[in-house]
């Protein structure tokens, strides 16, 4: 079962429908997490949402508890939450992307996607990862084709993945394929 933690976002149910293509999905609000479902789940998904990772200490605790035990996938805020827990700094960016369609490219660090491959994706984020960023087993595997901002991460050892953009947005082409690949990784 895939357990999605919703950070009260207005895009979460698009994520739910997208993951439902590939397996049974349960979704609860972060204020209302069901311990049994959380324990039982094989995959944990951290949803997009407003604010910054520091606003959600409970999610940081859950991440640290299940890291290495379950596959963990973060989207937008969820992506930043993973990086934040790995001692990454999440900062405001000058140019803000809300409802923005842009091109991203796969870096040479990716094991799942072909190096240099480009995707058109939908973005909704005012914050970004401050770089350089180093954490054991973590690689930045996609970047904005123009600004080079970090757009995806892979940790294939502990099965942790994340996207700064929104694979579930109608602005993202081949979003289902992206999710399919990381779910079968």
């Amino acid at each position: 079962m895939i357990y999605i933690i919703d950070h009260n976002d207005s895009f979460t149910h698009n994520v739910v429908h997208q993951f439902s293509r590939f397996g049974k999905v349960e979704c609860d609000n972060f204020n209302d997490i069901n311990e049994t479902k959380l324990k039982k789940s094989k995959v944990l998904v951290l949803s997009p949402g407003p604010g910054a990772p520091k606003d959600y200490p409970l999610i940081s605790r859950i991440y640290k508890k299940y890291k290495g035990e379950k596959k963990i996938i973060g989207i937008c805020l969820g992506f930043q939450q993973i990086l934040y827990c790995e001692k990454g700094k999440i900062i405001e960016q000058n140019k803000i992307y809300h409802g923005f369609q842009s091109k991203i490219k796969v870096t040479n660090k990716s094991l799942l996607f072909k190096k240099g491959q480009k995707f058109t994706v939908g973005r909704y984020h005012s914050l970004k990862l401050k770089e350089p960023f180093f954490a054991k087993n973590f690689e930045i595997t996609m970047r904005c084709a123009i600004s080079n901002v970090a757009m995806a991460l892979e940790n294939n050892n502990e099965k942790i993945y994340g996207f700064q953009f929104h694979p579930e947005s109608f602005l993202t082409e081949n979003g289902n394929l992206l999710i399919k690949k990381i779910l079968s990784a």
Partner: protein
Amino acid sequence: MTKNNYLKEIAKSQKPFIIYKSNKGFDLYTDFSKKIILSNKNIKNFINNSTKKKTKNKETDLYIGFFGYEILNNLIDVKIKKQKGLKFPKGIFYKPETKKKLSNKLNYKSSENLKSKSTFNVNLNKASYKNIFNKFKKKIKSGETYQIKICTKYRNNSKIDALDFFCRLTKSNMAPEAFMINDKNYSIISCSPENLITKNRNFISTKPIAGTLKKSKKLNKSKALSFFKKNIKETKEHNMIVDMERSDLSKICEAGSVRIIKKKIVEEYKDLYHYVSLIAGKLRKNTSSLEIIKAMMPGGSVIGCPKISTLNLLNNQERENRNIYTGSFGYLKFNGDMRFNIIIRSILNYQNQSEISVASGVVIDSNASHEFNENYIKAKALIDLYR
């Protein structure tokens, strides 16, 4: 079709009545056998029970009325602190016993001369609007909201003949979700263009508008489309609303069934072009009317995104009750079907005061003076009715 002098009769009879835009003309509902004033206590029962009634599918087997902004917040557990304003009911629904079809040409002129000399006052001046605007821009930078709509209100003291106003409004601004309510102690007139819920059996759709362009001689439909496409701000706002409405529908629809049926098209109205999308899905089995309303209301396109944190930001900022503004008007049929709009471009007349609320969006690249003036332009079409 009912003859036009019916409007004169109904005005003379002093009976409460409601007019709502239909496909071909208007529907008039009257002879109300029940009037339900909504509160936080009775709303859930009202919604659930109204659609569990046995029905012979008579045209009047429905409740028609409105939900105000506050009660829709409370319904999804968003609290609003005590606010100033008219003590207007949070929502009212009626059970009609008569329904009449009317043509698109509504003809009625008030016999009294009720022209009001009282001027409209705005509740926020440009300086305080800018102040709020900049506050919200910071919230966008820190990621608490992606888009937020600031409401301003225009008010005057006036007694109005609502039917006369509505007839003139439909001449100048025919809108697909136009409606009016005329009751003994209040009236509402609206030329809302925006449908929030159309539900027939297990099919549900919503038709958000994000992007409005005033018609001019130089413009046609395809030029309007290329304007919207080239305008990055409008495009981003629209994209955000489309993804938000997809998500709201996904809460209550079968996985994989939510589709964008019309993607970012231009619709032409008498004075305006609107940038609209149509999104639809197949409802999950046994989804209750209450679940539908909670998933979709208050309508996202007039609030901002993400909905809950944006509502909280708005509610901490706004000192005055929005009343009907950004609530929803429409009907719940006994068989569970429903149609609701978003209440915008409206006048609420209560206790001899008229209130016109308007809002425009703050995204990261919007400009405070531009949006403040935009608000006035939106209100002006309604203010002009008083001249």
